[in-house]
């Protein structure tokens, strides 16, 4: 286990780095430490942003001025973070965090018009389309981080046989709900966006709605399972969601 590396990212952010690569165990540590940091409610913390192997801590330097007369606010906060996180990082319960939580179920209609790259992914993997779907729904995924766009989950846990490079020519418009593969990861487009990932299907679920509480369907650290549905089920589910959204509150 690496030591905790903390360095400034500009003059109002510290970056806590736990590793250099995309690794499920490192990411579990990231979320355990981020949860602990949130719970500690340190003064002057403006935001806590976990990523694959790091946590950005945005803070108000004015609050940390004068904490020690001979050191900058950044140094004072970094020392506090080390003291706070080192015992937690060494603790055994990091290994078990979140492993018992129930996965979020994501229904997906695979292939056809809503999954235009499914055949390419199958060719690349040397499988037929049904096997690609079977392997995609067999995966036990975890949200490593959200980014790129509000509510976009980067999911770890994709079967190595389904890894596939991004498209050479990114699409200018990828529809909302598209389930896609990019390298070793799979993700879901929360709204219509440009994108270069291989689109294998679409979910009728709404991944992000600023007016909803919470706004993002998924949170970093959460488990996710995909479930195959047919076009008929997709339509029915999309209609139920639209009706619920239009119902008077």
């Amino acid at each position, binding site marked *: 286990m690496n030591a905790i590396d903390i360095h400034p990212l*500009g*003059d109002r952010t510290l970056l806590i780095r736990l590793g250099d690569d995309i690794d499920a165990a490192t990411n579990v540590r990231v979320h355990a430490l981020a949860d602990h940091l949130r719970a500690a409610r340190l003064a002057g913390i403006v935001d806590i942003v976990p990523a694959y192997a790091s946590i950005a801590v945005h803070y108000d330097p004015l609050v940390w001025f004068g904490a020690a007369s001979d050191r900058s606010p950044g140094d004072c906060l970094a020392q506090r973070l080390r003291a706070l996180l080192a015992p937690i990082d060494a603790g055994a319960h990091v290994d078990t965090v979140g492993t018992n939580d129930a996965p979020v179920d994501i229904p997906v209609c695979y292939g056809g018009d809503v999954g235009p790259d499914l055949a390419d992914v199958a060719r690349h993997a040397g499988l037929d389309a049904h096997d690609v779907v079977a392997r995609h729904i067999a995966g036990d995924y975890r949200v490593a981080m959200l980014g790129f766009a509000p509510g976009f989950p980067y999911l770890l846990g994709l079967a190595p046989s389904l890894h596939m490079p991004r498209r050479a020519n990114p699409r200018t418009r990828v529809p909302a709900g598209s389930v896609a593969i990019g390298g070793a990861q799979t993700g879901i487009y929360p709204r219509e966006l440009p994108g270069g990932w291989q689109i294998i299907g679409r979910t009728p679920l709404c991944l992000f709605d600023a007016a909803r509480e919470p706004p993002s369907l998924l949170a970093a650290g959460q488990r996710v399972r995909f479930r195959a549905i047919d076009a008929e089920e997709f339509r029915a589910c999309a209609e139920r969601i639209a009706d619920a959204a239009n119902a008077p509150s």
Partner: protein
Amino acid sequence: MTGLRILSPGLLASVQDAGRNGFGAIGIGNAGAMDSVALRLANALVGNARDAAVLELTLRGPRLCCEDDTLIAIAGAPIEAHCGDDVVPNWRPVLLRAGSELRLGGMRQGARAYLAVAGGLDLPRSLGSRSADLNAGLGPIPRALIAGDRVPIAATELRQIPCVAQFFAAMRDDHRNVVAPRWSLDPSPWFDANRARPIRAIPGAHFDLLDAASQRTLFGAEFRIGVDSNRVGCRLEGAPLRLAAPCELVSEGVAPGTLQLPPSGMPIALTAEAPPTGGYPRIAHILSVDQPRFAQLRPGDGVRFAQTDSADAQMRYLERERALTRLETWIHARLQRPW
């Protein structure tokens, strides 16, 4: 309830406040005013809280109509402003008569001006802020304003501000449509037209990965602000910067002010609508105190960077916050006295 009606939108006008915080973990950035100092001072001049919502105007301003008597203030880049035959001065409170058409023109220098109205723009907060995040499509008005938009203004007792009570008397007695005090703020500490002054920056975590020539170029050569710049970021055109060896990074936190280096070798300076994470090498970070000045650079302007460290950056931030708070206190007191 009163409001502003947009008759023509100008180049890019949007609703901005101090931005949103606390949603980085679900992929949401700050947004908010690009020139956060001009936002605060425009608000102070009309007696608002420092983070009240205002209009951010880009390069060329809108034409708009005040439905009721409205106290406004314009700060940031110097912008031509007229109401009928009257000139509307910048950097001071100005009372406009109900039904006035405010015509905002071009900016002689700088890129962004801020129009605050007493009471603040009265829109519901979305995820804690009224700011439009144009790239992510967030905010109560998540887009640039268009002709026909009406932006409500929160009710406020203008006549209870002693200085403004006198404006109303002058408007009535002298039949004036536009009333402003003789005093104004000195913009020179807060809007710097001297583009030759370098923007100060701290080397980033990956600065050492640049080859030696590129390290010298970053803190020595002149870059040009790219024409495709927007509220997310600003492309810096010049001699391409190169890494000494290729490097693959996983996405990590970034912030407004971060200079990222994509494979093209043209750095991108992230600004107000920076996403919370990014995957390119972080070669430097613009000081918080210099970000408002950076936000006033126009496409095509030259810019140089000067190197400093994070302790110096934080000391300058403390000094600037003290100066701004003193000025806000002075403005508040000035509004309580006759003009």
